[in-house]
């Protein structure tokens, strides 16, 4: 593929890459919020809450993201038309966020559990309630340990988000496929791979910076 042609395709590729990034970042943010609640649920003394959260995680980690996407996009409206989510962005974001929440929940739980038990004891001995101890002592300490695995999850999602092509969203992978059928040429996958590499590398660097920032007290 010559350079001229590549340059004409570049805006489309870049727009695809932008959609990929936006999808990924927004889903991770919502996924992390839901994941935190799931993680706290898994650590809860209430057996029922623990079980529910366990089931959620089991279900969403045990089935392919693609099926979850399909389910939310195609099957929900079949079950009941009022469950039709408008447009492409909302079902795509919902599926990605629900999926990553399951992974992030386990990451967050591991980070919380890796905090020295002495910290919870010290907090309790000072009279803090479980909630205060979690909120003021345990969870803040887990931030730094969360950064590397959350970064990995974000990068995994960056690549998995290509599956939303299946539900009519246009992101980098879909744009690449479209161009490749036009050209009947696999060479277009090369610039797309470079764009993916660039995105993952940038995210990696950002997360390494963040990690350094949060290690001041170590």
């Amino acid at each position, binding site marked *: 593929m010559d350079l001229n*042609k590549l340059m*004409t*395709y570049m*805006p*489309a*590729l870049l*727009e695809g890459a932008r959609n990929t990034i936006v999808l990924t970042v927004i889903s991770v943010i919502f996924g992390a919020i839901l994941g935190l609640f799931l993680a706290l649920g898994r650590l809860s003394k209430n057996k029922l809450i623990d079980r529910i959260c366990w089931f959620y995680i089991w279900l969403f980690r045990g089935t392919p993201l693609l099926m979850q996407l*399909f389910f939310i*996009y*195609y099957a929900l*409206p*079949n079950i009941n*038309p009022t469950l*039709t989510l408008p447009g492409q962005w909302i079902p795509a974001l919902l599926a990605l966020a629900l999926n990553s929440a399951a992974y992030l929940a386990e990451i967050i739980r591991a980070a919380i559990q890796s905090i020295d038990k002495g910290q919870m004891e010290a907090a309790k001995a000072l009279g803090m309630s479980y909630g205060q101890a979690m909120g003021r002592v345990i969870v803040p300490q887990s931030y730094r340990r969360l950064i590397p695995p959350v970064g990995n999850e974000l990068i995994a999602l960056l690549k998995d988000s290509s599956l939303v*092509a*299946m*539900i*009519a969203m*246009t992101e980098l992978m*879909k*744009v690449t*496929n*479209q*161009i*490749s*059928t*036009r050209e*009947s040429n*696999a060479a277009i996958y090369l610039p797309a791979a470079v764009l993916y590499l660039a995105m993952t590398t940038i995210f990696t660097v950002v997360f390494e910076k963040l990690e350094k920032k949060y290690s001041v007290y170590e």
Partner: protein
Amino acid sequence: NKTESSDSGSGTSDVLLVGVDDSYPPMEFKDSDGKTTIGFDVDVAKELGKRLGKSDVKFVSNDWTGIFSALEINKFDVIISSVSINDERQSKHSLTKPYIANKQVIVTKKSTTDIKSPDELKGKKVGVQAGTTSEDFCRDLIKQSKLGDNGLATYPLVTQPFMDLDAGRIDAVVVDIVVAKYYISNNKDKYNLSWESSSSEPMALCFKKKDTDLRDKANKILDDMQADGTMKKISEKWFGEDVTKNLQ
């Protein structure tokens, strides 16, 4: 005063939403900017939109897998995306009358000389796009024992069988004639159109099951377009000939 009552369901909006798997040149694919959807079906859709009195036509790019489900859950009003007519689709959706005649063809490499008809596919490997009538065609061949059980490879994108033909993993591609012609004209010294089916395989616009009124209107419009030469014009623009004649 028909118009008041008959714009049913999702057709009520001012914009016609058209579902396309826009990786199927020259029927529906991306322009050289990689963004604009163009092709024969696209022009037909635009004309349809105009004649339906819509202010605009928007294209929703959906992968072939799932495109029919997406239609029935209101993601768009109609699929205009090289939908071949078969019983399954007739029963589950509302198809218009044929608007273009399609045919299955066999494409081989220039160097291949021993495949001149489906009868010579025995022991060969054939590639098709998954879920298309080309796949159905090959499955029939398998049933008739004209093609080995392991002789069929299915791919998500229509280009992929051509790439695998290049790589030498398969011996032939079975594909719609319009697509075949597009790829052959782009790679004149690479591929051969080895065989062309005699029976033509009509394509239709595909509406939702419940949108029969809209389908009927579309049928009328298709007739008009045929009659006033619009179809011929569009066809000649994309194929250099009129492939919209002689539809049964």
